[in-house]
């Protein structure tokens, strides 16, 4: 507690004046969570603070569904748990590391595969580290492979590589640090109720451009809830400036304490017409996980931390059961947003729409 107080007290003096694309002088981390009107950077940090709620324990079940342009479908049932090393986002804003040292683990995640049978009992462990503009440390990954009966340390792939056959890249999963990007507030907008978005929602619209000129994305345009800072929608553009992917994220109060957390992800690769829907349920924050459970060798015995309930997973029967595609929001921020959907993809979308109407 004393360390945290000291950290908050000295936080501002310890933060470099200009950290990558951020003008930290205008960020005022000591005043987090700030008051409106927010700067674009502040909105980006607020969104980051919301995306991973600052709770110690996290436990859930998740069903990941992937459907490619030809209708090939994969469904993966998993159990997930997380142990976070901070319960206050200010521990991450404190770049000098009084409370949580830069380079120390900030988050440890386990994903345990239940189905398909081919991947049963395969377990992925990741340690994500606290980074600052001066201290960078990539995520460490380990995988338990039943066919080897071995826990293998993995080298993290390219940040632009897809993970496990899906369309989300390492950066999409691990997340980008807010100080990795420059942010511009494009304006405000109301997202319509569509796809997995349950009701119209007022958002700030932020343009984020990576500070690395060789980065695989040209830019991201992000719709962030004005009240709760949920990143409802994210559009990723390629280096040419064409729309590449649309991600939707739904967060709702979860667990006994009704903490805002993820319940639905829906991603659409516009170019490839690849869809990925992740349904997250049974979310709790009341666990009491121990550090040892997140040690690589602890994975070895194919033993889940609670009895899995395969019957509870909301498997779908066909791609028709997927949510509607996210809307393209034509006419909004036209100078920043352009897309060229391949003819083949257009044809497939049209075909699916007709089939839906027919059904």
């Amino acid at each position, binding site marked *: 507690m004393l360390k945290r107080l000291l950290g908050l007290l000295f936080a501002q003096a310890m933060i470099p004046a200009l950290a990558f694309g951020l003008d930290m002088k205008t960020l005022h981390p000591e005043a987090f969570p700030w008051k409106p009107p927010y700067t674009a950077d502040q909105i980006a940090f607020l969104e980051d603070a919301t995306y991973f709620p600052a709770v110690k324990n996290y436990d859930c079940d998740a069903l990941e569904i*992937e459907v*490619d342009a*030809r*209708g*090939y*479908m*994969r*469904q993966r049932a998993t159990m997930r748990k997380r142990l976070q090393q901070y319960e206050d986002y200010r521990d991450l804003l404190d770049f000098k590391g009084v409370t949580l040292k830069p380079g120390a683990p900030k988050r440890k995640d386990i994903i345990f595969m239940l189905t*398909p*049978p*081919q991947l*049963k009992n395969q377990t992925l462990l990741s340690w994500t580290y606290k980074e600052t503009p001066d201290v*960078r*440390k*990539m995520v*460490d990954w380990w995988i338990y492979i*039943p*066919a*080897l*009966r*071995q826990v*293998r*340390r*993995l*080298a*993290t*792939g*390219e940040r*632009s*590589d*897809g993970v*496990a*056959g*899906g*369309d989300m890249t390492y950066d999409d999963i691990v997340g980008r640090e807010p100080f990795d990007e420059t942010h511009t507030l494009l304006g405000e907008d109301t997202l319509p109720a569509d796809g997995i978005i349950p009701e119209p929602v007022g958002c700030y619209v932020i343009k984020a451009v990576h500070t690395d000129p060789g980065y695989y994305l040209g830019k991201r345009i992000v719709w962030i809830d004005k009240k709760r800072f949920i990143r409802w929608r994210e559009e990723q553009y390629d280096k040419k400036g064409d729309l590449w992917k649309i991600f939707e994220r739904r967060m709702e109060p979860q667990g006994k304490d009704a903490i805002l957390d993820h319940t639905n992800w829906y991603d659409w690769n516009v170019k490839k017409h*690849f869809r990925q829907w992740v349904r997250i349920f049974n979310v709790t924050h009341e666990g009491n996980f*121990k*550090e*040892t459970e997140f*040690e*690589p*060798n*602890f994975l*070895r*015995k194919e*033993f889940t931390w*609670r*009895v*899995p*309930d*395969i*019957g509870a997973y909301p498997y779908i029967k066909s791609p028709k059961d997927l949510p509607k595609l996210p809307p393209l929001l034509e006419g909004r921020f036209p100078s920043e947003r352009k897309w060229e959907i391949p003819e083949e993809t257009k044809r497939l979308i049209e075909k699916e729409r007709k089939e839906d109407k027919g059904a």
Partner: protein
Amino acid sequence: MFGAAGKGLIAGVLLAGWAGGAMALDGADFRRKIEEFDPLGKAITQPLQMSVPGLELKANLQNLTSLSIHKDMNQNRNLPSTSSNFQGIHWLMDLQTAYRMSPDLKFTVRNMFLYDSAYDWNDGFRNSFYGSMDTLHYYNSMDQIFREWYADYQVGGLQLRVGKQQVSWGRVDGRQILDMVHGFDYTWYPFPTINPFIPVEYQRIPEFMVNADYFFKDYEFQFLWIPNFEPSFGPTVSGSVWEFNQRASSAMDRFSRVSFAKADKPARTFENSQIGVKLGMMKSGWDVSLHYLWSWYDMPTMFQNVLLFDRFNLPPMPKSSLAASSSLNTGFIRDLWPPVHVHLNPKYNRVHKFGLGADRSFDWLGRQWALKFEGRYLKGRYYQVRNYTPENHGWDKADSLLTGVQLETYFYKDWTNILRWDHEHIFGYDGDMLDLPVGSPLNRNQEGIYWTVLKPFGFTNDRLTFRSLWIWLSGDGGFRYEPNMTYELSEKLTVLLGGHLYWGKPGGVFGQFARHDGVDLGLQYVF
């Protein structure tokens, strides 16, 4: 029959043809039927798991057919000629049943049944490889069929597993250094392989043991008590396709009789137990472990007693009988004349295995690398020597240190590259030592270079995956190359096309299989 270029061409054409064929499946209505194919899953495993909480089922049905590129695989080897288009048509059923009685307690049974129909469908194969052991044809013992069975109990930081099981201490791929607890079944394939249809869990021979693992903060302490020793199986089994080139023909011509005592496993007594301990820790990004295993060496030492005929007045045996009765290297006999009677008395001997493992990741050149190290000091192993004396019985004891360093990273779009170097040094080396079971002169230092490439193809959403393993051994200059591709027809069905190619001298570790080049075709249904 084919030179190096021919082997490469055949493998390349088959890989390309297969990949093209797999792609062509897409786009047809047939494709959807294949994707939905899961009759046994829908009828058995899914409904059972849905209706019985805590029940976990998994089954693997697979066929792995290996076609031989060369008709006579034993040409240039001192083994009987073969005439077979196949190296095996393996049908495998692997059933895994687990029941979670409570959050802390789980029971697991693993049944496996293997049937090689090459014996039924291929005359050449049957005539060439019908050995004395039915087990090469099909699994017929309870030990094989009830491959693993154990109970897990977990409370707090303690993980307890009791029963017939597997324990892997290894970190690096390709060669077992710290993965030293179990014997190895050489009849599947004589080395750990990149072929996903022959995972190393099928090659290890499970053992009954008490396995207690205790975790405290970032420390791990593991204790193994193994009352039942299971040796390796296969390299000297007559009739196995992968029998090592162990019978020196020159010796056949010159000695007259070999007789064997039975290789009895150590009696199941408390004194004959094996004991293993591991201490692991995570410090400053390093995952470090120390290991010790007091065990039996996984293959028997064939102690020799050479008896002169005139002493025992034994008549010489016909050569044909000798060929049939001899099944181990007896190189020392080349130097003996007149003909002798060699009595072999196989015995398992105790060894001490000390291990050190370490790995960590680091960021360099804008990417992450994984560095892994394994070292094993083996104390008390016997090496066969050419110079027999009545005192040494043809063997010398020596210690060895085997180390391996592996570096792993990704390059451009999911190309995993794993580079590995290993080195073995023999302390107290004697120039007369022989490399068993091949029987070529043993080097004091032996090195191997391994290069593995893995590439899932993004345009197929990783349904198509390419793997390649290339190994070079400095000791005998031999090479091994294994390319393969798998294509995920559905989440339940996978097809495989691969190959295994060898180069080197007939007496070398890889060279002995220079005519065992083959093409692997596989189909797997997991439900």
